[in-house]
Structures are given as C-alpha cells and as structure tokens.
C-alpha cells in the first residue's frame, strides 16, 4: 500500500480460484465458506493489479510458489 488513497483488499481463493473479495476487514475470513471447504481456502491481501471485476486464480511460478493470475471471463457462448 503505497498510495494512502487506496483501500485494502483481501482476496479469498478456494481451490486456487477466486471465491470472493472484500474491502472490509471484518469480512476478510472464511466464515461464509462451508466448513468442509475452509481447509482449501487461501487469503491474499492487496494483490497488485487486481481491479475488482476480474476473475483470478492461483498458479505455480517457476519456483513452485503460488502466484495470482488474472483473466477475463469469456463471453457467453450461443448454443
């Protein structure tokens, strides 16, 4: 957080896919996640590049560490 005008954002991932995010610290937890899934959740704070309306997932980098990756949701496909 280098810009004082920016707000904190917490991103919660379930099975490496973004489940939800929040700007309110009181919701930065796994309380809304089913108990059976909480072990598969991870939380990151202030992920650089996250704008709020992107989809995000965790991927492994060359060192084997999980890093966030953003992607746009594909448009709906016609049947």
């Amino acid at each position, binding site marked *: 957080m280098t810009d004082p005008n920016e707000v904190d954002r917490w991103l919660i991932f379930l099975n490496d896919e973004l*489940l*939800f*995010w929040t*700007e309110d610290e009181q*919701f930065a937890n796994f309380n*809304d996640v089913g108990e059976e899934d909480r072990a598969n959740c991870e939380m990151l704070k202030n992920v650089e590049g996250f704008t709020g*309306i992107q989809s995000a997932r965790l991927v492994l980098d060359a060192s084997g560490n999980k890093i966030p990756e953003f992607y746009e*949701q594909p448009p709906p496909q016609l049947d």
Partner: protein
Amino acid sequence: MSHHISNNTETTASQNGVDLTQAKADIVAIKAKTDQITITNPANLSTMESNISTNNAKVGITTQQASDITANNSKVGITTTQANNITTNNSKITYPSSASTKLALIGITSSVNLNSLVSQSNTNVSDITTLNTAYPRNTIVSWVGNQTGNIFFDGNITLNWDGTNKQLRFSILSIASNQYMTGGVKITKPTSQGIQISNYLSLGVSTAFKYFTGSQIPASSSILNSTYNMLNYSRAVYWLQPFSLSSFPTYEISVFMGSSSSYLRIHIKKYNN
C-alpha cells in the same frame, strides 16, 4: 535754557532788557511745546515713567509666533451645527465592510418578503415529509458480485452482500426486543425458473447477518440455504416486513446479475408507514 530770569539778581537794566527778551522767547518756545500736550485728567509722570520701564522690560513675541497667529487667524472654523453633527455621527453604529461585501453578493431585481419565503420553505419541508411517507424511497447500487461488504445502511437495517454465496443478507439494528421481522426471496436463474421462500426471519436486534431464506431467531444466528445462491444471468427479489410494527420501514430489494463476478445492479425500495 541758560537765560533764566530768576537766576539774574544782580544785573543792569540793559541786561534785564536782554534777559526779558530772551525769557519771552523761551516762554514762547515752552508754550509751543506744551501746546502739543493734551491732557484732561491729572497724570503722574513718574508713574508713567515706571510703567513705560516695566513695559519695555516685557518679552515680546517672535516673528514665527506672529506669523503663526496670522496663519491661525486666516483659518476657517466650524460652526456649532457642524460640531453637533460630528457628535451625532460619532454615536452612530458603524457598517462593517464585510457586511457591505455580503450585501453586494445578493442579487435581487424585485421586492421579496423574506417572511413569506420562510413560510413557503416550511410548507415545502412538510410536503417533502408527506411525500417521503407516501412513496418509497429508491436507492440504486452497483456492486461487484463476488465482493463481500455492506451495501446499504439507514440506521434501521444494514444490507450486506455475501460474495461467497451470492446472496443478500441483512442485520436489524434498531427494533424492540419482542419485534419480529418477516421476509423472503424469489429468484429466477438459469437452473430454475422460479424458486421462492418466506418466513419470519429475526427477533429484535441482530448480532449477525441473516439470510432471507429461513427463520434465524437467535440474534447471532445466521443460516445459509445455498439453494438460493444467485448464478450468472439471474434476478432475485428480497423483502423485509415487520411482523406487527407500523413504525418500522418495509424494504423491497431487487438484485440483477449478469456475470456473478462483475457488476450487479441493486434497487432498494424503502417504504415508511
């Protein structure tokens, strides 16, 4: 005067004749001088001499002082009326420049009765209050579907979006401990063309966010029914209504979802009385 008659006691007749002639001339000369003197009352020459001496000893004024007196004499003074006017003006209340500046900012082209304006304003306030109770107040919110946070607060309730489960939930902030809130939700989504549920939902003030999908009477109770999670391309209409309290508002909330991770449009209608 060297030919005084009284001084010639031993002289000849011829000498006396000469002396008398001289005396006569002297008398004529004296008379000519005394004729120059005019006096109507006795005067003491010694006193006069003393007074002259005293006056000669007095200090006079300087040339500058004489000049200053002349300059002052030429000045124009003020009249009594003018002096009175100055006194009157000094007793007047001053008008500060700040007030003058403010007055200059007022734009007005015709006479206005401020009392009438106040009366009209009070009427308008009353009318607004009447309209607020006659029609629902509308609030439109855009919110990202996978963001968890509070979206509405009015002192009576807080509405909160559960970004994990894609459901709206609420918290009652101000209500009597024996008062129930009822409500429910109706959803249209791709996997279901219409599911709905309603119940009494809470009692008294809440200490946790409650879902619209079932009874959660203990203040800290929060029970999720994931059947009512919204999905892409869905709409939900939630409602809250006090069980028997006329003074507590009623709420109707419509949530429109395109992509569950993009912007929702939320329309909150609040009804009073």
